[in-house]
């Protein structure tokens, strides 16, 4: 029997579901290998109750309703995979980590707006056990396909444990940060994108989230000796992983959040 999987979206741009649908050459092969039983974004006939071998969940948790729906997904799934930077790190919607949600809501909806179910956006792991993560904004098609292959073979997919810079060097691209003094977040960002942005002469903005054991101290040191303002780089990381940076700055790594 083919393993039953579900694909779910919480708060986000639907990017990971679009990436799955963008696997045009492989979509029908995937469908041949797994049984997609719950995918509201793609099907109007879904099994919303039964057990799942794997749940792929994209988006951040930004309301009580979403927290409850994530808990239900977790309960029925043997494995839960966080897909995309919002699910893994909080992402863009968590940029300001909830400090002034109500002020922002008043600015956007007008003073005296109706009461909405609105909470600071958080990554999935703040609420449930996450078995594997595929970061990226959006996640890379290849990484998703590799993750599906790994899961079908009983393995858990692992994100790259090295930074974007490693990919950039492999591709023999000119270093934007050191050679050109451009605020590139490559040294502290998880690889896996093939260092796409520097290849287009634009800096990494950290959309894949902080790399495991990111060396913020060394990053700060590089920035101190260059003309690049520190807040431009770390501020960019904050665009995608504010809850993570806040946790780091409160915990073991004092340099992480100090300058953002």
């Amino acid at each position, binding site marked *: 029997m083919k393993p039953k999987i579900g694909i779910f979206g919480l*708060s986000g741009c639907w990017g990971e579901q679009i990436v799955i649908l963008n696997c045009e050459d492989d979509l029908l092969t995937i469908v041949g290998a797994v049984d997609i039983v719950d995918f509201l974004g793609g099907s109007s006939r879904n099994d919303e109750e039964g057990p799942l071998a794997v749940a792929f969940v994209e988006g951040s948790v930004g309301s009580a309703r979403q927290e409850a729906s994530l808990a239900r997904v977790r309960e029925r799934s043997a494995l839960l995979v966080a897909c995309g930077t919002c699910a893994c790190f909080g992402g863009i*919607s968590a940029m300001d980590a909830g400090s002034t949600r109500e002020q922002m809501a008043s600015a956007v909806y007008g003073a005296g707006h109706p*009461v909405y179910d609105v909470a600071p956006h958080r990554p999935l792991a703040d609420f449930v056990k996450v078995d594997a993560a595929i970061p990226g904004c*959006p996640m890379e098609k290849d990484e998703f396909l590799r993750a599906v292959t790994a899961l079908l073979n009983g393995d858990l997919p692992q994100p790259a444990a090295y930074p974007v810079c490693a990919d950039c060097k492999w591709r023999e691209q000119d270093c934007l940060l050191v050679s050109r003094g451009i605020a590139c977040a490559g040294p502290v960002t998880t690889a896996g994108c093939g260092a796409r942005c520097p290849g287009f002469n*634009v800096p990494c903005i950290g959309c894949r989230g902080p790399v495991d054991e990111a060396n913020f101290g060394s990053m700060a040191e590089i920035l101190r000796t260059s003309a690049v303002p520190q807040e431009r780089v770390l501020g960019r990381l904050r665009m995608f992983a504010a809850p993570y940076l806040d946790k780091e700055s409160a915990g073991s790594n004092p340099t992480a959040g100090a300058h953002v």
Partner: protein
Amino acid sequence: MSRTIVVEHLARIEGHAGITVVLGNDRVERVEFNVVEGIRLFEGLVCGRHCVDVPGIVSRICAICSHGHTITALSAIERALGMTVSAQTRTLRDLAFQGASIESHALHVFCLALPDLLGHPSVVSLAGANPAAVGMALRLKKLGNTIQEIVGGRAVHPVNYVLGGFGRLPSTDDLLLLKAALEAGLNDCAAALALLCTVAVPAFVNEPIRCAALVPKDEAFFFGDTVRLSDGFEVPVDQYLTLTNEQAVAHSHAKVSLHQGRSFMVGALARLTLHGDRIQGAARQAWNAIGLTLPSTNIVANNLAQFVELVYSVEHALEIVTTLLARGLAHEPPVPVAIRAGEGAAATEVPRGTLFHHYVLDADGCVVAADVITPTAQNFSNVEDQLRATRC
């Protein structure tokens, strides 16, 4: 006796929404379109951010319109900074919009709507019954993505669009690849047309539609500086607030747009209704063959209008690529950015309709105020009106 129908989760849409319909004896009494998407507050998130970072943030509003959001944000910020981009940059942005149009319309018409029209719950189920049709749809979708990848650097959340131009220009090899793919795409369009001609479009709604769309500027069907409504009003883009008049409502996280107290529709059907005379060539032939009569009183016909636009976009993209190959791309670096205080609004026609972005910048180039109005939010009230007019 009245009866209430609640669809808690609408399937095969991007985002989270439901519908509540209250039925009376012989008519629909009340309709609520409940958009329950997690509230992200983008206009608040960008405040205080440097304008260079803004396009990469607002891109994340919507994956499928990420190229549209990015380019519209760039255009608004370029206006605020008094920048003018080159004709080549405008042409390449136009090409990107054709890619977005092909990808989005192929996804919606063939992967989301067509399964419904043929009695399938999903495109996966449709693929079991008609693999050739789904293969053709996926090839067209991929063609749109290939254009977006080559021009924008990535299909979802582009990286190559910067203030004043591009990080890296496409190579001749890229353009040659695109040309071949677009020529093959025209064949797929012909096959897709033959398929769609056999599909009956349901006509359970029969209600006049008030249309709104940008008046196309020059050759560019998706760009303009004035919005026209089908009842004669015209609104310059920098006065877009007099068109949208957004208001927060309790039953939805999306705000409601009303012009003079009445809803309006944006998107492919509205564009073709107002400016269909711009559509010629294979797209015009497809339009004639498909039996789409405009103005229409059936919003479901929007799917046919999207298909006509898809053919237009394949043809127009091929024209652009052919011209660029003949002329050669000039190696222009982006226009230099000179930071100053300013304000700028821009609008574009993205696949689902008119998209507005508006930013106020301080002297350091940081955002003081921002406003983004998506086509889906503008369509929200019209969807309720059309459902209200549905026969019980």
